[in-house]
């Protein structure tokens, strides 16, 4: 199907002889070719029409069509084949207004599904409702292998991206001299509060989300998101350490963030005031610990100096005494 792809690249002007498929004995390739062939003809029809198809409708009709086709095909050669989409994505370049990748489609469905989460919880029903609200078949939930975990992870990734944007904007403002740089503790406090406030619309059902994230197949991704979040917050707080502090700072912040999240889900005070107070206290604890550690270190150094001085003094005195006893 390479010749089909290259002809796609040349601006959708498809000669009818494109049907001459390459000879191959690979059955997977053959069934893909069938689907591709139909898709190619469909796009050919669309490009011949006078009215340019709007991007969303053409992509959805394309996908509906393709999904209908994939129902007949082998699961291996179905729409979840990443290699197929990757070829398409690599070579369509600027011409991909009519086409989107599978990841983009999944992202759109999950974003739409977030509206239905207060109603259905973090579940496949919410994803199905989201898909339907976009005009897609609710069978497209089959795309999500991790099920409702995918929805939660998508929401978390979205929140992280929003936070990074806000922090980058603040960083820019400070660089431009339009804002004063905050103290580290205040910066961390504001960053964590901003991030946790994004959960407020879903706070009733957030415990369900947290339990979903603890499922074994979701743990790697959720840990990855958490570590990226912590790294981002510290980076924008100005941390540039390249020693063990890199690890201790992030570990400390992870502790603060997770415990504050747990407090938040069972907090019933107005505007979650108790949670923010708890957050303040935890940050203060860490700051105190760091200060104490520094103090202990400098005290220790002073003590060692003192001891060495004392040892030198004692040895000098005993030497003088020895000399005295020799000469008297």
């Amino acid at each position, binding site marked *: 199907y390479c010749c089909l792809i290259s002809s796609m690249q040349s601006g959708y002007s498809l000669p009818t002889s494109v049907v001459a498929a390459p000879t191959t004995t690979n059955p997977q390739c053959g069934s893909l070719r069938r689907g591709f062939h139909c898709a190619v003809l469909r796009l050919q029809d669309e490009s011949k029409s006078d009215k340019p198809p709007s991007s969303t409708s053409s992509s959805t009709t394309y996908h509906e069509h393709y999904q209908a086709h994939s129902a007949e095909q082998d699961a291996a050669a179905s729409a979840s084949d990443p290699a197929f989409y990757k070829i398409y994505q690599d070579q369509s370049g600027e011409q991909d207004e009519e086409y989107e990748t599978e990841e983009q489609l999944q992202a759109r469905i999950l974003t739409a599904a977030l509206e239905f989460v207060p109603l259905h919880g973090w579940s496949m029903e919410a994803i199905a409702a989201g898909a339907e609200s976009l005009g897609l078949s609710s069978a497209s939930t089959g795309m999500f292998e991790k099920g409702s975990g995918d929805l939660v992870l998508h929401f978390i990734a979205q929140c992280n991206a929003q936070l990074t944007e806000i922090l980058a904007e603040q960083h820019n403002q400070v660089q431009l001299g339009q804002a004063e740089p905050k103290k580290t503790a205040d910066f961390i406090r504001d960053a964590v509060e901003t991030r946790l406030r994004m959960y407020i619309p879903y706070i009733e059902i957030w415990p369900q989300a947290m339990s979903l994230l603890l499922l074994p197949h979701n743990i790697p991704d959720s840990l990855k998101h958490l570590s990226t979040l912590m790294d981002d917050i510290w*980076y924008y707080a100005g941390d540039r350490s390249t020693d063990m502090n890199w690890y201790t700072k992030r570990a400390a912040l992870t502790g603060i963030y997770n415990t504050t999240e747990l407090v938040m889900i069972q907090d019933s005070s107005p505007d979650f005031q108790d949670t923010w107070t708890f957050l303040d206290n935890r940050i203060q604890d860490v700051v105190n610990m760091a200060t104490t550690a520094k103090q202990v270190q400098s005290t220790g150094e002073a003590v060692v100096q003192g001891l060495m001085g004392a040892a030198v003094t004692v040895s000098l005195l005993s030497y003088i005494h020895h000399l005295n006893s020799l000469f008297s």
Partner: protein
Amino acid sequence: MQTAALRVFCHWSQSNSTAMIRQCLKCRALTLQQSSRAYGVIPPPRDSEEKEMVHRMLRVDHAGEYGANRIYAGQMAVLGRSKTGPFIQEMWDQEKKHLEKFNEILAENRVRPTALLPFWNIAGFVLGASSALLGKEGAMACTVAVEESITEHYNNQIRTLMEKDPERYTELLQVIKEFRDDEMEHHDTGLEHDAENVPGYWLLKNAIQLGCKAAIYISQRI
């Protein structure tokens, strides 16, 4: 500097048409990219695979320089007041400069340092001190072994980068080549100062080099 000026200009003209803002943003992005190319040693990574590869290289290089630092510190602790002291001090100062450079690069590119740093701290110091306890020749033999390992490691990295895309990694290649030349100089200094006269030179050298290979392997991953 020019990026800051450009940003101010962009903010100024925010009241104007969106086309101008779009243009401004485009040239700001371009300038940012160019400036990070001009002032930074690493090009902005194209995909996560490249980022992983470059970060791994920087991580192990940073760990290596940190370890070398500690080895010289151990040697100075024992031989600091002897007549080889000044030579070891000179090599140590060069290693400190290398470490500083890598600290800079790591901070700039948000590379995670290796988690084994405390371990390399102690292991390096112990290696330096114990080889110095064997006398000046022992310390020099340790230097020869370690510098040879590090030179080979840097050469491997240079080869990898040259195979991938020498133009893209010009600055990084320059830094690594410069450091590799410094390490070779240390190796030669060690040989000049009777490294080979230590009893059990072959055994000592190979044992240390094996340790270095293991350290490099681990630090690339953890």
